[in-house]
């Protein structure tokens, strides 16, 4: 009999189906105890369709090729002292935030997908989640390898995991992922694969990583794009989960809509950090946060929801508020970075004149009217030797744990604060979006571990002052925290460049 080469679809079918069975020693509900309590009804798991028909042998083949490319670039970057060729050492604050805040999330994602890769009843979904678990572990490892080179030369990268558990601002990404990890399996994949990866991660991995390339950071460019090519599989998994669940039963629609509303808002709040990386931490500019939001949410995100409308899914609640806030949040967040940086593991600074002009060009009257005057005042205070620090920890939202720097959407002069009473306790929020999330799940969110409150209660190694707290964080002023221009990073940068400040003087230098 002549051999007939199998087509991709046939091959995929043969290699990925019929691998599971109905259990007989124990009832299926005991073997898969978590996939019903959310109320999601699945009639037929065999209707699951994998978007990419990537079999395990092809997966290993292409992943190993990606890995070889990536490590070849990391090697040449370190062998050629690539750290000296970044545009300016200010850029490193973005990398510190990535190492402290984002890389631990990759590891959390690995754990989360291991868990749901065990607990979905359908074998197709289990296999997809197990492959994603491998990808996520790869992302955590490649990022740590890339950053380990920078750690030899710059501060703030020495103990990312220690800092994740102690830095007040790192509870923002940490609590985001711990919320997802402690959800049911359908909520977990909707939160991470769909709302976070499909709708929002392009904003980090496309324009920011492109900006890393523009600023000479080939290490981040290579792991960033390599990770995002895995993400493109994860995103399609997220879309598949959502469509599969919506097609299975009409009762699933309101549950999925609530998950989408919640996780769009949580993801959006987390991305305030990314927006600040783009607008303030890239010395050479690629694209503003507002422009990226326009492309990746208002165009690409709307196209996605346009498509989902056939299932009765509408745009996420409060999306119009997120779009209005695009002109404000990065400036408001940078103000907190600038004023609160003594109690962190990174440096901050005032935008240089060329950057102020770029921000004016990108944000127009919003920047010139509300934010430029504040920076000019801070600049005068610096000249007078009175660099302004808040010298206290900020008040943060009970849900997203972001410092409440947000303002009312139609009045940028008024801080936005929301309150809710529950079981005799008063809780505070940054927005209606975050308040709604609490009101839907008060038993969960009343337990939030709010770092500024804990620190002031003495639960940060007994620290009583910000200096003692910084010591407990292992990030003292000057070496790891505080203003960039009085930091070791700046002194070293000048030393390595013969006393020259290499900062660009135009946005497109």
């Amino acid at each position: 009999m002549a051999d007939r080469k199998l087509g991709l679809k046939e091959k995929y079918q043969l290699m990925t189906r019929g691998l599971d069975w109905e259990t007989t020693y124990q009832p299926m509900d005991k073997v898969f105890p978590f996939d019903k309590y959310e109320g999601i009804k699945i009639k037929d798991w065999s209707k699951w369709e994998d978007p990419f028909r990537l079999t395990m042998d092809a997966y290993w083949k292409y992943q190993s090729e990606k890995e070889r490319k990536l490590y070849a670039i990391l090697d040449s970057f370190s062998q050629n002292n690539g750290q000296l060729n970044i545009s300016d050492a200010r850029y490193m604050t973005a990398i510190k935030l990535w190492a402290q805040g984002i890389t631990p999330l990759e590891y959390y994602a690995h754990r989360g997908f291991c868990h749901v890769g065990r607990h979905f009843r359908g074998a197709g979904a289990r296999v997809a989640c197990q492959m994603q678990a491998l990808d996520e572990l790869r992302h955590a490892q490649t990022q740590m390898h890339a950053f380990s080179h920078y750690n030899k030369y710059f501060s703030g990268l020495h103990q990312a995991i220690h800092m994740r558990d102690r830095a007040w601002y790192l509870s923002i990404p940490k609590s985001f992922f711990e919320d997802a990890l402690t959800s049911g399996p359908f909520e977990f994949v909707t939160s991470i694969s769909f709302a976070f990866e499909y709708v929002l991660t392009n904003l980090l991995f496309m324009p920011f990583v492109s900006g890393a390339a523009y600023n000479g950071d080939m290490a981040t460019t290579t792991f960033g794009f390599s990770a995002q090519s895995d993400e493109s599989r994860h995103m399609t998994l997220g879309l598949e989960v959502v469509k599969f669940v919506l097609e299975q039963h009409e009762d699933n629609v309101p549950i999925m809509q609530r998950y989408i509303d919640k996780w769009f808002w949580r993801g959006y709040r987390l991305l305030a950090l990314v927006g600040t990386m783009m607008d303030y931490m890239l010395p050479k500019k690629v694209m503003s946060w507002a422009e990226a939001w326009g492309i990746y949410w208002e165009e690409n995100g709307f196209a996605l929801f346009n498509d989902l409308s056939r299932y009765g899914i509408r745009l996420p609640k409060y999306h119009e508020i997120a779009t209005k806030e695009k002109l404000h949040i990065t400036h408001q967040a940078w103000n907190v970075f600038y004023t609160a940086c003594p109690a962190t593991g990174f440096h901050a600074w005032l935008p240089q004149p060329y950057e102020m002009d770029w921000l004016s060009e990108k944000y127009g009257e919003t920047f010139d009217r509300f934010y430029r005057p504040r920076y000019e005042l801070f600049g005068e205070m610096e000249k007078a030797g009175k660099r302004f620090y808040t010298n206290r920890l900020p008040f943060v939202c009970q849900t997203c744990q972001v410092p409440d720097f947000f303002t009312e959407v139609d009045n940028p002069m008024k801080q936005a604060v929301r309150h809710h009473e529950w079981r005799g306790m008063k809780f505070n929020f940054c927005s209606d979006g975050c308040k709604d999330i609490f009101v839907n799940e008060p038993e969960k969110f009343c337990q939030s571990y709010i770092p500024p409150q804990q620190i002031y209660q003495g639960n940060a190694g007994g620290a009583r002052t910000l200096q003692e707290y910084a010591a407990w964080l292992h990030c003292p002023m000057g070496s790891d925290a505080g203003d960039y221009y009085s930091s070791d990073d700046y002194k070293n940068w000048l030393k390595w460049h013969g006393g020259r400040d290499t900062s660009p003087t135009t946005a497109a230098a």
Partner: protein
Amino acid sequence: MNLHDKVFISFQNNDEARPIIDAIIADNPGAIVSEMPAMIKIDVPKRLVVKRETIEQNIGRAFDLQSIHINLISLSGNIDESEDEFVLAWGKRG
């Protein structure tokens, strides 16, 4: 152009991806190409197709369509994948 019916694909801007990018531009007449540092993004209304045959013509040798993963950055839309075509489109799954 309707902003809300586009699908997109993006690749690293390197020599390996160039024949793939050229094939997409040739096979999708409405394609809008945006270049940013180190990456290229291609938006197409409704449906985007990557054809093996066109890439093979560009490089003059056989090409496994799944190897687009190596230089792929991101994409949007529902995927339909065979040996000959990789299609991104909005619409019902399956």
